[in-house]
């Protein structure tokens, strides 16, 4: 057992033998890169000049006044390409280049990670293939077009449930075949080691900035920090610099879909059991035979039956708390934020906002929380419009 690959009993490298040397190469190159000042300088250059960082820590005035506590929004929605995903893509693609790879592949659900990867590939002139479930290709056609405009090839995956989980399976298969010249850019805090560590490293910029920004605004640490959790990339980035600050409460918000007591949710912590999928051991939604169950959420980005291994560890140790929010609660919060602050969040991020508004009622006016607004809602207008028209869900 490779102990550094584990967070408690979670994590590891559950991949075929064909990928083990590849993972070792990625691990070695990654460790060298993040200790190389030149690499870090380059990464921060692109974050600043290309992505537009740092992102603001916006004090939501009207929301705070109405709900009676200080609510700060970490505006990842203002990043180039519209979400936090680009932070990680740039880190991994710079690493891929450094390793001499000429091709990148990625999986995508809603299309945000796919668009971010296609963007990075265009910028660094790499051949890019994105795997996307056939169902998602249908319901996120705008993002498919964006990826194709950016020069990426989008492969519509028709196996299993035709969604993110199956797109990830197909990306892993392709990677196992082509690892000699291809780098797999994983977008969530999942996958075999060192991927969960890499994603955290490249998303940690969120909390690194937010901690300083909150200190400047309030002269102290926040009481609570929260973010939505699908695979867990924006949340691990939002938690990273606060994990060793015991006074800061960490809360991850899972998608409860139609409710955790129904069969249609994506709450792998609330309702799952530990198991192995996509190279890592963590909480998974699975049936009595150990087959992986389909997740459901109105937000395609949270529609995943597992969660990153470090989250499973933070959950078990009690360092972070994970709570479910339903589709309805998320959509109400989305409208509330839109009307009060003039910010249309991604439905994923609206899950975090929904819990923030619940928790605010238990906090006082001098306390403070940071909510990670991981992405903007432009991609979701069709879903929102169908929802408002009472047509239910695209999922």
């Amino acid at each position: 057992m490779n102990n550094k690959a584990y967070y408690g009993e979670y994590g590891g490298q559950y991949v075929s033998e064909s990928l083990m040397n590849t993972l070792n190469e990625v691990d070695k190159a990654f460790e060298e890169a993040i200790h190389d000042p030149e690499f870090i300088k380059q990464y921060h250059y692109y974050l600043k000049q290309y992505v537009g960082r740092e992102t603001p820590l916006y004090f939501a005035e009207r929301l705070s006044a109405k709900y009676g506590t200080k609510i700060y929004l970490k505006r990842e929605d203002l990043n180039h390409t519209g979400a936090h995903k680009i932070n990680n893509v740039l880190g991994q693609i710079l690493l891929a280049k450094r390793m001499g790879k000429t091709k990148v592949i990625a999986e995508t659900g809603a299309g945000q990670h796919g668009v971010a990867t296609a963007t990075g590939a265009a910028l660094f002139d790499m051949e890019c293939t994105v795997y996307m479930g056939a169902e998602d290709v249908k319901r996120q056609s705008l993002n498919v077009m964006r990826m194709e405009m950016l020069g990426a090839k989008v492969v519509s995956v028709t196996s299993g449930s035709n969604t993110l989980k199956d797109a990830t399976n197909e990306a892993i298969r392709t990677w196992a075949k082509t690892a000699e010249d291809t780098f797999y850019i994983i977008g969530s805090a999942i996958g075999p080691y060192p991927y969960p560590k890499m994603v955290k490293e490249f998303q940690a910029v969120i909390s690194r900035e937010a901690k300083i920004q909150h200190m400047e605004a309030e002269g102290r640490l926040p009481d609570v920090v929260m973010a939505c959790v699908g695979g867990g990339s924006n949340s691990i980035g939002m938690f990273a610099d606060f994990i060793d600050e015991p006074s800061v409460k960490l809360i991850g918000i899972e998608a409860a879909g139609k409710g955790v007591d129904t069969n249609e949710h994506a709450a792998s912590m609330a309702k799952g059991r530990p198991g192995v999928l996509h190279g890592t051991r963590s909480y998974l939604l699975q049936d009595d035979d150990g087959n992986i169950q389909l997740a459901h959420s109105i937000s395609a980005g949270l529609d995943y039956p597992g969660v990153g291994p470090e989250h499973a560890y933070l959950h078990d140790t009690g360092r972070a708390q994970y709570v479910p929010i339903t589709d309805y609660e998320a959509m109400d919060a989305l409208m509330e934020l839109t009307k009060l602050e003039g910010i249309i969040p991604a439905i994923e991020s609206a899950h975090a906002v929904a819990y923030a508004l619940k928790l605010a009622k238990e906090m006082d006016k001098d306390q403070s929380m940071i909510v990670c607004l991981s992405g903007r809602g432009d991609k979701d207008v069709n879903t929102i419009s169908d929802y408002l028209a009472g047509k239910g869900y695209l999922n």
Partner: protein
Amino acid sequence: MSENRIQLQMKKLQDEGKKAFITYITAGLPDMGKTKEIIKAQEGITDVIELGIPFSDPTADGPVIQQASYEAIQAGASLRKTFALMEELRAEGSDQPIVFMMYYNTIINYGLKEFADKCKAVGVDGLIVPDLPYEEQDALKDALASYGDATILIQLVSPISAERIDTITADAKGFIYCVSAMGVTGQGGSYHKDVTEYLKHVKSVSKIPVMMGFGIRTAADVAPMKDVIDGAIVGTHFINLMREAGFDPKAATEYADTFKKEFV
């Protein structure tokens, strides 16, 4: 304690100077009854049967075995039912060496100890777990160890395993499963460019027989490597063949017979 059926068969082949032949079939495709007939139809011909336990997310498999797995699950196949099939087979006197090819989550879900107990009880001779690389095997090996070599864990090596080959083969049991190509099962004869060199390397360090799998259809496909391998594994092609034959057990007998005769 009696010796493991795979190890006995390997020894027998070695003594007779013969090559091993292994087929793969997904358990419960199209149903458990047919699976049993297909296994029995190869008794005394095919040296080892690889029985695939269907899983929802078979990341090491190509489209044919994915589809087989999917259909088997839809038809109600599961690990529990495959154990029941094994019980019947052994009760009916079958001494066919059988390995389960399965994904690790199916094992964890059953419980490591419970799984090892059951494998021993129903006579599962070996395991191939494609998403459990050497570094992650300790827990499963510990669970299996309580019954000695009743159920052995088969080791896989790939064309880019390189320096890992020595470590992996050092304490391997039964046979070494060499994948001929990078990636997933069933890639129709397109072996890795350095396949012969790689097989030679494995053969030179391995104390046990070396089998080649992935993309093999006929004995002619492996003829160029026959001096460096001790046997061949046919999975995807065998499933295609069974489908074409409407899962007629006779087709399994004929195919295995032909392959065995031509593979010398």
